[in-house]
């Protein structure tokens, strides 16, 4: 009987064959934390182990509130810098022009590699499945324990196989696919599961598109989400690998799945997730004309160079009708957007560009909404109050739909402006 991706990776790490339902204890290859490394460091100190198990297996990337907007955040950042110094942690991305959103940096810098087990104290850690890694979000206590022991327990998850065929029509992208899937199977449709993306359309997709898919695995409850470690992945990681322990691992043809779904890209249309849940799917026709007050092009879901290009194509030579905030996913993306003239396009169109980071995605700063306001956003969550005010409304959409809507001041169909 064949094995799923999760069974193979966790079995390899455990050192013996495992199947869904087994419980294994494994050593993670990398442990990622962002601004919450500060409280984790406090918990770590309570355990009574003086040194972390392997300093070079920890990666700290400040992104949630940078540069620090409040004294509380400033203190958190200071404590992280002190901990980095004290523990000799080599992989630290501070508030500099080498940083960016943690999940983007993990992929850009060669930490996200096929077959690795990566844990992160952030629920969107599942993003690195785009590079064939088994990556998942965990809580703070658990992260402190992993720093101390180098171990973490997992129940080997059942797997959901999603096969994707066909080609996107004009104005439709990976974000529309994942919002459709989540709308279909709901916020707990993949609870505890490993989601595997298969099929010719996935092979066609760029790594940026695959990151968008895997990033939102958690929004259907998944433990992890993963795409095949194909030639595109191997090409992307060549020369930047932070460890040689990686291995291209993929599910067997005859693996056993708890559930299987098939999607045809040609059947998809531009769409949004309406307030206040990610599974609240609506096709663009159902929401077209809804008044918005702000547009946000950013976050770990959709702020890569490919996303910025799609939005810029729509905004070029035009002017936005509502305040539009653009936050590239990293400084590397920022610089590339600068070189390609995209930032100029955004500036000419009236957008506000801020430094790479999470920005207003979880309501920290740089674009909080007022009561009664609606925002169309390329991010991954539209929970009530997510962008700082509980009487505001968030619509999730693709970069193209966000750009088209920014021009009109209402939710708009990107196909009409392309």
């Amino acid at each position, binding site marked *: 009987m064949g094995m799923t991706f999760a069974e193979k990776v966790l079995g390899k790490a455990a050192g013996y064959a495992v199947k869904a339902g087994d419980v294994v204890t494994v050593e993670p290859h990398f442990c990622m934390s962002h601004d919450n490394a500060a409280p984790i460091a406090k918990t770590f100190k309570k355990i009574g182990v003086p040194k972390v198990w392997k300093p070079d297996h920890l990666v700290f990337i400040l992104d949630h509130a940078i540069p620090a907007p409040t004294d509380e955040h400033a203190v958190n950042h200071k404590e992280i810098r002190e901990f980095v110094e004290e523990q000799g942690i080599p992989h630290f991305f501070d508030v500099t022009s080498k940083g960016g959103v943690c999940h983007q940096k993990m992929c850009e810098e060669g930490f996200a590699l096929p077959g690795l087990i990566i844990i992160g104290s952030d629920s969107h850690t599942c993003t690195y499945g785009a590079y064939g890694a088994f990556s998942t979000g965990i809580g703070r206590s658990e992260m402190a*324990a992993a720093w101390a022991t180098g171990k973490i327990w997992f129940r080997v998850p059942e797997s959901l196989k999603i096969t994707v065929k066909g080609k996107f029509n004009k104005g439709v992208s990976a974000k529309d696919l994942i919002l459709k899937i989540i709308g279909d199977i709901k916020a707990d449709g993949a609870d505890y599961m490993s989601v595997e993306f298969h099929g010719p359309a996935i092979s066609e997709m760029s790594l940026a598109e695959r990151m968008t898919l895997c990033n939102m695995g958690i929004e259907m409850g998944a433990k992890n989400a993963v795409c095949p470690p194909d030639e595109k992945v191997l090409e992307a990681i060549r020369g930047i690998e932070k460890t040689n322990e990686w291995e291209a691992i993929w599910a067997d043809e005859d693996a056993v799945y708890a559930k299987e779904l098939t999607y045809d890209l040609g059947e998809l249309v531009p769409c949004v997730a309406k307030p206040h*849940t990610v599974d609240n799917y609506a096709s663009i026709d159902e929401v077209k004309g809804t008044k918005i007050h702000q547009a946000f092009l950013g976050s770990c879901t959709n702020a890569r160079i490919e996303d910025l290009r799609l939005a810029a194509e729509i905004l070029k030579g035009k002017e936005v009708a509502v305040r539009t905030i653009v936050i590239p996913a990293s400084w590397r993306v920022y610089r590339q957007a600068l070189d390609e003239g995209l930032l100029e396009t955004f500036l000419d169109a009236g957008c506000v560009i801020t430094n790479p980071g999470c920005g207003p995605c979880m309501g920290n700063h740089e674009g909080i909404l007022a009561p009664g306001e609606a925002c169309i956003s390329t991010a991954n969550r539209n929970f009530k109050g997510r962008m700082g005010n509980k009487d505001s409304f968030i619509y999730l959409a693709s970069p193209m739909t966000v750009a088209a809507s920014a021009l009109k001041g209402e939710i708009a169909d990107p196909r009409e402006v392309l």
Partner: protein
Amino acid sequence: MEQNVLRGKAWVFTDDVDTDLIYHNKYLAETDPKKMAQYSFEYYPGKEKFAKEAKPGDFVVAGRNFGTGSSREHAVYCLKELGIPVVLAESFARIYYRNAINNGYPVLFVKGLSDAIKEGKVKDGDELEVNIATGEIKDLTNGNTFHGDAVTDLEKDIMASGGLIEYLKAQAAKK
């Protein structure tokens, strides 16, 4: 065992209660659980006064996918600090569940609870009796009964120690 039988009032929630509804991201920089407690469910429509009015021993009763969203442990700390002895839900989001176990905070998976809530078989203010050892749940107000599944053996050890950190300390002391 009498100590496993708890009585309290039900506070009833829907399916897909996300981490921002339980504990809003506005207060993420907070590190003191006592202060976290006062923000519990502040963003949940109709339950804004939960933190003030819930009494230690009251129960949080919810449908499917409780705790969906962020990995923040505040969403566990705040309820634990308020003295909510256990969360009863049809199912839990994976990270919330792990955070609960790792903090020695009991949760029960209660089959049929989502529909029961929708059908009004358990309502806000109902008096509940919960046996956290056997998983038997009685709604004393209307006589309805439910069954919850307690944690597995693996997790019992962590729970018995009071959480993952305590468990690790105990393991280290044994060596």
